[in-house]
């Protein structure tokens, strides 16, 4: 069970959360002007890195807020979490 630090509620067990995939994917401002390939890139293509990954989580059985997290996809360790709309802290809580 992963221990996840909700930026509002603090450390909670993984079972209280839902995963929301890669973070920071901005919906294109003018979809009509995109090529099919650009639209496909927005819709489907993902970084899926082996290592640090910035991703979205929702504290479903808690405050029900979405937030951002940085996690190592090999060790699964969360290195930092931060609120939507804010910048991540410049230092990590733990090393990956």
């Amino acid at each position: 069970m992963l221990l996840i630090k909700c930026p509002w509620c603090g450390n909670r067990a993984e079972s209280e959360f839902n995963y929301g995939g890669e973070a920071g994917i901005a919906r294109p401002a003018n979809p009509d002007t995109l090529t099919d390939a650009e639209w496909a890139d927005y819709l489907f293509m993902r970084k899926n890195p082996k290592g640090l990954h910035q991703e979205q989580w929702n504290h479903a059985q808690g405050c029900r807020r979405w937030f951002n997290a940085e996690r190592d996809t090999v060790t699964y360790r969360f290195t930092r979490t931060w609120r939507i709309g804010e910048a991540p802290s410049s230092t990590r809580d733990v090393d990956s």
Partner: protein
Amino acid sequence: MSDSLKRHHCLEPFSEDSATIGSSASAEPAIRVTFDGHREFYNLRGDPADAAFTDAVKSFTGQSIPDKANTLSYRECTTCWLGPDEWLVVYPSFEAGRFEKFSTELDSTDATAVDVSHGYIVLCLSGDSALDLLAKGCTLDLHLSSFNVGDCVQTGIARTAAIIANIAEGDHYEVIVRRTFAEYLAIWMRHAGAEFGIGFD
């Protein structure tokens, strides 16, 4: 018309059927559970930085809304923190017209209140082993060092989403759950509490 009808809750038959269960069945059980299905619940959304909103709530409920995560304020009613812009206001009993008045109070603000009274029921737990029971189905650290009077947490108990409110000294806890999950959770408590001795009122 409906206000004059007696309100029933889904766990009344459960408490009538349930004798004390567990090792200490003959003595006073280590955990007592009572059901309270007659409270009023308002879901409140607003910006805590908006003085018009916080003042309006304070003038109506007589208390400030808690701005610290996972805490509650308690006087005539209980106000639980649910999120950075969301609270649950719980009145101990139903009073005709109160919600309408509260709602009117918020009319001049950007906040909203929704009467969700029919959605929730409270399981009141007391006794030495009440926390031990909750700990069996919950991943949170409920030790005194991290869970005290004035705290409330939203979490999962035996897979059920619940709010645990710590509102009084002396092993007394309120578990607020959706009505439709209440019977399941009560059955779970009956099983999980047997090792301590559990009685339902």
